[in-house]
């Protein structure tokens, strides 16, 4: 089956559909960002340093993921494993920060039940976090399969798709960061 080129094309199309899902969640957030119903606003809740840290971690993980892909082209399996482990750890750090943020909000009474604004925030960022988790699981499976099997054509194609997925999630995060945290910060400065 001629398929690696076909599989990558198909995967791109799947990524576009995932993008539409995020677009809907983002649109919901934009519509509901002022629907705080007297509850906490983004201005009160979001901490820029925190969000910035999450962003830098994710960007770095995207970079290390590229290094892993580069190592694939060089056929250096050990290096591939190494960079994927680093990416995995960075991804876990991102998730840890995100879950910390969520639990802080919930403990302050700013849970997803409080207002439309908070609901849309948790739905958007939570869905992104869920995708990150799937990506991390995929990375684990890849790491283990690389450890026990050699780098076949099919494996290379799969790694390439994983990298696409991971970069995609990074790009989505840029949008989320800008719209959710960035704009809140900017709007605050002008008030």
């Amino acid at each position: 089956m001629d398929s690696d080129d076909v599989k990558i094309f198909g995967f791109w199309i799947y990524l576009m559909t995932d993008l539409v899902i995020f677009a809907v969640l983002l649109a919901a957030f934009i519509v509901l960002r002022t629907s705080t119903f007297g509850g906490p606003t983004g201005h009160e809740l979001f901490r820029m340093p925190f969000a910035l840290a999450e962003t830098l971690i994710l960007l770095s993980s995207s970079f290390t993921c590229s290094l892993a892909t580069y190592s694939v082209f060089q056929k250096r399996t050990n290096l591939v494993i190494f960079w994927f482990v680093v990416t995995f750890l960075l991804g876990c750090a991102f998730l840890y920060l995100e879950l910390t943020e969520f639990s802080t909000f919930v403990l302050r009474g700013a849970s997803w039940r409080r207002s439309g604004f908070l609901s849309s925030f948790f739905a958007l960022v939570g869905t992104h976090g869920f995708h990150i988790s799937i990506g991390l699981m995929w990375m684990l499976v890849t790491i283990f399969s690389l450890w026990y099997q050699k780098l076949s054509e099919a494996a290379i194609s799969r790694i390439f798709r994983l990298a696409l997925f991971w970069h995609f999630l990074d790009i989505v995060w840029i949008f989320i960061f800008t719209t959710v945290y960035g704009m809140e910060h900017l709007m605050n400065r002008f008030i």
Partner: protein
Amino acid sequence: MNRDLFLGKLTIDAIPHHWYTIGATVSILFMGLIAALFLTKTRRWGWLWKEWLTSTDPKRIGTMYMIFALLMFFRGMIDAGMIWLQQTIAADSQGYLAADHFQQIFTSHGDIMVFFVTMGFFFGLMNWIVPLQIGARDLAFPFLNSLGFWLTAAGGILINLFFVIGGDFANTGWLAVAPLSELEFNPGVGVDYLIWSLQLSGLGSLLAGINFMVTIFKKRAPGMSLMKMPLFVWTSLCSTVLIISAFPVLTATLFLLWLDRFLGMHIFTVGLGGNQMLYFNFIWMWGHPEVYILILPAFGMYSEIVATFSQKRVFGYVSLVCAAIAITLLSFLVWLHHFFTMGAGADVNSFFGIVTLLIAIPTGVQIFNWILTMFRGRLTFASPMYWFMGFICVFTLGGMAGVLMASPPADFQVHNSLFLVAHFHTTIIGGALFGIFAGISYWFPKMTGFTLNEKLGKRAFWLWLIGFFVSFTPLYLLGFMGATRRLDHYAATTGWQPLYITSMVGFVIIICGLLTQIWQIIVSVRDRKQNLDTTGDPWNGRTLEWSTSSPPPFYNFALIPTVMSRDEFWRRKKEGLKKIKKYEDIELPKNTGMGIYISGFAFFMGFALVWQILLLAIVGLVGIIICLILRSLDQEAEYVLTAKEVKQIETMSAHG
């Protein structure tokens, strides 16, 4: 806490105890029992598993889609009959159905007909015909094809499961609009059944859409440029563009609604910052492209049928392609016309109204092109052409009603009335359903190897056509009489009842048409030996599917054809068909049960989420993930059919 983990919201009440839930449960069990007995007696369980259920052959999957769609069609028609009966007798009385039950019936009627019947039939026909028409052996992703079908089937089982467990379906209308579908107004599990059955089948449709898009872009036979593709492939491609853009919106919206209900969020609720209008916007951003997803493949089928039965090239191929693309693009820009009455203001309303009007232009162009194809052709009126003629008559009337409603002030009067109901049934039945009937009667010989009884086919057509007009013309009029849709009873002083009765008579005629079609299939199967299609080309066709035997071998083509023009098969016939000299090895995908296993886990997860049974939901999710991992590690998903074996099969079928 313990109870939640294992049983969720399930209580003893979930056991069927209404007349209709008991009745449905008994029928389902009875049908299942008959099927199981038959399979056991004829020792065909293994055959069923190996030849059909685990198959990755798009022809097999296509047939399964169509059988599934047919079963759901019966369910949807029973719903329709119950609706009609209620409205016929409910003048100054509550009829025989309580209001809530009646509302559940039309909700499930709509969801079943849109998600499972029309999409099921279209995916079935596309699976069969698209690979054959582009000179391919299979879709781009055979495993995904199987998975997509089984997810749709899982959704179909889930949407019927409420009869057996729970007793209530959603009563909100087919789109489960918020805030009616929120916990405040609908605390039961009915809406959740709707959400999860639609999520499963929506995911199946999305996967199928991706699959067909990649197939059409990447798997065409050498020489077949985009502008040489048959029009059915073109419109299927446009349909996939709509599927991959719109279905994620449905997934996200239903997901948000579910979050509102499951986690107590406030995206679409009344109060606490929820926005009801947001649901309408999102759901129709999916909903409008959806109806074009349903109609575009039919347009393509009609193009093929008219060309074949006029023995002539289709007129204006380029125009038809442009029209399909125009319709695809415009369909993204009109969603607000579904809620002009929400008060968006004249500027916004006019914009969407005018863009809606624009869609009439490419649609009209298509109709002119079809008529011009017939012009100076040599017409034979076999039953596919009957369905085409019926389509033009019926669909045009529905389209006129649509153009009328594109003007906001006109819509203010007829929105949510039976005029609206008549409009969309006219376009869906006249366009999509007649298209399905046309396509099935056209390609039936190819799929089965024998022809359908023409006489019964034509009789069925007339019954459907007459029945359609008798049942839906009164609905247009009822709209003008101030009759709102979805009413479970009304005052006799409205004067509506005679029209409802007329409409019911039409329904009975339609049922006669449906019964005639079933009889037609039975008779055709019975008489199949006398009506074998030995040439593979019973209609003197123009496109590549007719170059194969009827039915085609499981690998479609012994040698992938090299295409030199549009209507490639017609050209080959005119210039003389060449004999194959040298056979080649063929690589084919193996059967796999993974599609079933993943869909099974997905089904249990969906069911668990409906009833909030946490443990089962986690088991379902973990099961899906493990299956996906196992599948991805599977290195031997294909096998090779040697050239020698191919030659054997080919010579056997030529002599057999």
